[in-house]
């Protein structure tokens, strides 16, 4: 029964991880850019949701669309105005650039919001099924995370712009022949990446206290999920996220919670070396 509880905890965590990482994965897969801003985007989304609730009493569920829209706008403009200028350059350039942008965003967030941990406390109580304990806000967070990830999947599979994003990822030149403007699709993709980060942040703020100190941790999770699940696909992020959640949950139980993170990273390093394309991996970018 204890293992079942750990497994359930892992799945809840994993769903959140999938949502957290899927935007990062999409950006890496389509643009071939490692977005160091992703962690700060998550916290920004969380803070916006928190302050909407704290200052104006807006329920996070209601704030979520607005948070998403704001983050999308920020992402879109950032890509179109800044990152597109060097998007085809080597990773040292693009990674350093996004890191520089992250320093700016991070700084403004700490100045305006300070690093105090904040949390939207909804006090929804908990449920107890067959000995498995589950706070309802967590359950709610998990479902929201899965919903957002699912929506992204539907968007990529079923919409005109989703088809264009996949086409650009698979074959840029052929996509151009379809009349697709690559730079616009890059901006849209980066916007979606930021949107998903913001949504994940808003969801996180209902489940855990969040602070700017966590940006690095979140970014690290996104790395690990991507390497486990492979780049640029929603199912990959879901597999990677759930795998990481479950592994962390069990590792925390076995070695103590402070080692959970280590296990994830060691796993990722090992996987990088053995199979750099990820478990489900389609090779990125040809």
């Amino acid at each position, binding site marked *: 029964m204890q293992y079942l509880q750990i497994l359930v905890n892992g799945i809840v965590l994993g769903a959140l991880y999938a949502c957290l990482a899927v935007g990062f994965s999409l950006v*890496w897969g389509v643009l*071939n850019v*490692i977005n160091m801003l992703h962690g700060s985007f998550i916290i920004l989304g969380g803070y916006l949701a928190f302050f909407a609730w704290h200052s104006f009493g807006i329920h996070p569920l209601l704030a979520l669309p607005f948070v998403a829209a704001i983050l999308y706008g920020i992402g879109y403009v950032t890509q179109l105005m*800044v990152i597109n*200028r*060097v998007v085809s*350059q*080597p*990773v*040292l*350039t693009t*990674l*350093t*650039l996004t*890191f*520089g*942008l*992250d*320093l*700016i*965003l*991070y*700084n*403004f967030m*700490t*100045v305006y919001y300070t690093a105090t941990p904040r949390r939207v406390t909804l006090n929804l109580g908990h449920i107890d099924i067959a000995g498995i304990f589950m706070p309802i806000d967590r359950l709610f967070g998990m479902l929201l995370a899965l919903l957002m990830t699912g929506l992204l999947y539907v968007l990529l599979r079923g919409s005109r712009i989703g088809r264009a994003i996949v086409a650009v990822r698979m074959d840029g030149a052929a996509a151009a022949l379809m009349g697709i403007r690559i730079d616009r699709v890059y901006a849209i993709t980066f916007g979606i990446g930021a949107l998903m980060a913001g949504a994940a942040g808003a969801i996180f703020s209902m489940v855990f206290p969040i602070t700017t100190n966590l940006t*690095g941790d979140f970014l*690290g999770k996104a*790395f690990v999920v991507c*390497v486990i699940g492979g780049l640029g696909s929603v199912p990959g992020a879901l597999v990677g996220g759930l795998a990481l959640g479950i592994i962390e949950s069990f590792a925390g139980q076995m070695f103590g919670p*402070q*080692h959970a*993170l*280590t296990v994830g*990273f*060691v796993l*990722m*390093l090992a996987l*990088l*070396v053995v199979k*750099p394309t990820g478990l489900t991996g389609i090779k990125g970018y040809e």
Partner: protein
Amino acid sequence: MSPTMRYVIFALWVIALASVPLWAGNYFVRMAILIAMFSGLTMSWNFIGGFTGYPSFATAAFFGLGCYAGALSQKAGVPMVLAWLVATVFVGAFAAALGAIVLRLRGHYFAIGSIALVEVTRLVISSWGSLTGGGDGLNVPLIQGSPTEVAVTFLGVMLAIMVVVFVVTVIVDRNRLGFGLRCIQQNEDAADMVGIDTTRYKVFAFTLSALFCGTIGAAYASWTGYIDPTDSFSILMSIKVPVMCILGGAGTVLGPVVGAATFMILEEVLWANFLDYNRAILGAVTVLLILFLPGGLLRINYRELMARYAARSKRSGAPA
């Protein structure tokens, strides 16, 4: 720039840094130590990131391991200088062993792998509480003397390391190894085809990039007397160092020194004047650097720039 000119500039710069205690207070001496230290780190990164062109973000892993290897050796009773050597050898061996594996990755995967290296080493050190003191950190035996004496001593130490790394850089730059690494940076497949054992060369470069980070880390631990995992394995350092190198000119001999000095002074000025926004300004500098000065300060054609400026001022000066 002729090689002799480079050496003269470097020598003058080292002398200038060494003379700081003669004419300025402890604040500036500390600054000089940090400049020397980051110059050493940046020149180290230059072996793998500049010469070889591999986007390594592992500096903090090597530095942090150096901190702990040195500190633990000292605690175990090894004399200080010997402890630094132990740290150097340990970190070098660590990089050599790991390099053969990590260097199979290219591009983005190598970058992520090197970042993961920092995280894993940090997490291992902070979880291994019984040995390392975990998150509480570790006290390192301090050397005897007044704060000024201690500072002057460590300025000497860091400058000595900086000179050694520079000399190694010059040697590498001038012989077969440096030539081969440049070939790999330019075109790895073509390098392979002209007969360069690329794997061996890359492992060499990776090890060189780690070696002195180990020494510097150990010396840093002895200087500050206290280390903890968050400070020793900071991803910020891992990215600051490449930025410094790019700022000066990656792959050049003098670039890392110029970049480290410029960056450190800039950062210090920003710290002093914009306490709240220093990070943001640092970020802005990085962004502007990447967008407008990707080749670094040393690769700007100043003569052409002057000529263009002169031409423009002449034109604007001429009657309409």
